[in-house]
């Protein structure tokens, strides 16, 4: 009789271990997805000084715009949590938008190879940020679902698997489109 009890306990333990491991896998996937975003955000920070320099060469007097961009960049680099990061990046996107609006007034600037190259790199990076964000948010959704469903929720609470934040950020050119399948 006691053998059955031991057996049942072992089975329950194995089941709990499997649940725990599943949550760990999901959590690691989120970290991996976040690092994908991080790489692209850094790429954007690296491009911005060059872009500002390029525009300065033609429109040195538009100081306000440059200051806004530089400040927004510094704030984005310093951001801590996922939520703060999203806000700071949205600000940066907006300031870049006004930088490009300024550039619109200088046809020579727009025609320069350097500027065209930077513009392509920046919009490429921004669309990669968007895709990485999508992948990250999907991963977070899967994790949060797994974390909240019974019986994993017991393990999650006991082992401090907290909820994760979605990465919300205003995007450059792409309008988010609702897709229903």
């Amino acid at each position, binding site marked *: 009789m006691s053998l059955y009890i031991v057996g049942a306990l072992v089975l329950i333990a194995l089941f709990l271990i499997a649940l725990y491991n599943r949550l760990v896998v999901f959590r690691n996937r989120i970290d991996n997805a976040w690092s994908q975003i991080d790489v*692209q955000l850094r790429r954007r920070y690296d491009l911005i000084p060059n872009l500002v320099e390029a525009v300065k060469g033609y429109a040195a007097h538009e100081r306000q715009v440059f200051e806004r961009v530089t400040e927004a960049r510094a704030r984005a680099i310093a951001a801590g949590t996922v939520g703060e990061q999203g806000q700071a990046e949205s600000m940066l996107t907006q300031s870049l938008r006004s930088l490009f609006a300024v550039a619109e007034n200088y046809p020579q600037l727009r025609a320069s190879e350097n500027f065209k190259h930077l513009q392509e*790199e920046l919009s*490429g*990076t921004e669309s*990669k940020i968007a*895709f990485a964000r*999508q*992948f990250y948010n999907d991963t977070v959704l899967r994790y949060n679902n797994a974390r909240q469903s019974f019986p994993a929720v017991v393990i999650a609470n006991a082992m401090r698997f907290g909820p994760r934040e979605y990465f919300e950020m205003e995007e450059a050119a792409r309008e*988010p489109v609702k*897709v229903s399948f």
Partner: protein
Amino acid sequence: MYDAIEGNVRRTWLLFAGFVVVVAALGYVFGELTGFGHAGAIGAAVLAAVAAWGSYYYSDRIVLSISGAQEAPRELFPYLHNAAEGLAIAAGLPVPRLYVIGDSAPNAFATGRDPQHAAIVVTTGLLDKLDRLELEGVIAHEMAHIQNYDIRLSTIAAVLVGTIALLSDGFLRSMRWGRRRGSRQSGSGLLVLVGIALAILAPIAARLLRMAVSRNREYLADASGVLLTRFPDGLAGALEKISADPEPLEVANKATAHLYIINPLREWGGWTNSLFSTHPPVEERVRRLRAM
């Protein structure tokens, strides 16, 4: 999606088996006609097995080279690289190798044996004629084929089906040549009939098989592609532009046509179009995309 992958693995094995059987049958008839006897069938079966094995590893290279695709360097095609890298991130896959075909007809395909050995090929016409969101739609469609392992099945099919077409063609020729020499005995009349039947049936079988390879998975790739871009209008616009373009793609042929996002061979029409077509009608694909 895992169903799709499993189905593709199973179909690839069926394709290998079917290929060996058809080639062995051709070898048998050829052997009987030329006096080599059963050696023809055995030799052909062995050769076919070796060819099938080799096609697993080398099909992508063969397809790339017969399509005249050249590697696309990042410096010359930053736009293409950025789009592919972004969608690889969205799909959670490694970035595929990128190739271009120097042709003004817009079209694209993906090839390779798994996501780690995948390549996406676009024509220079596609890059010129589509805007960014449309190009992303096309790349996302190809990325979906890579994710589902459609590329492995369709690439191997292209090479094996091409081989069968070549063989049956050569077989018909050698029969004509044999008749002129007058070296055949009259007793082999039945075998000649079988031979003719095989030579005619082989390409038809090949075509039907290709149809099984494509069609439904195009809808699936359209839908999974949109799941990556979240922008159905991009792909819908691209499909309309590609299919409305009057230029034929010269490097495409009947063995590789099913790989492309839109059938690159324009001359087909009438009832054969719907029976043998490797692609579902564009209007239907666009309609489904717009309804998403």
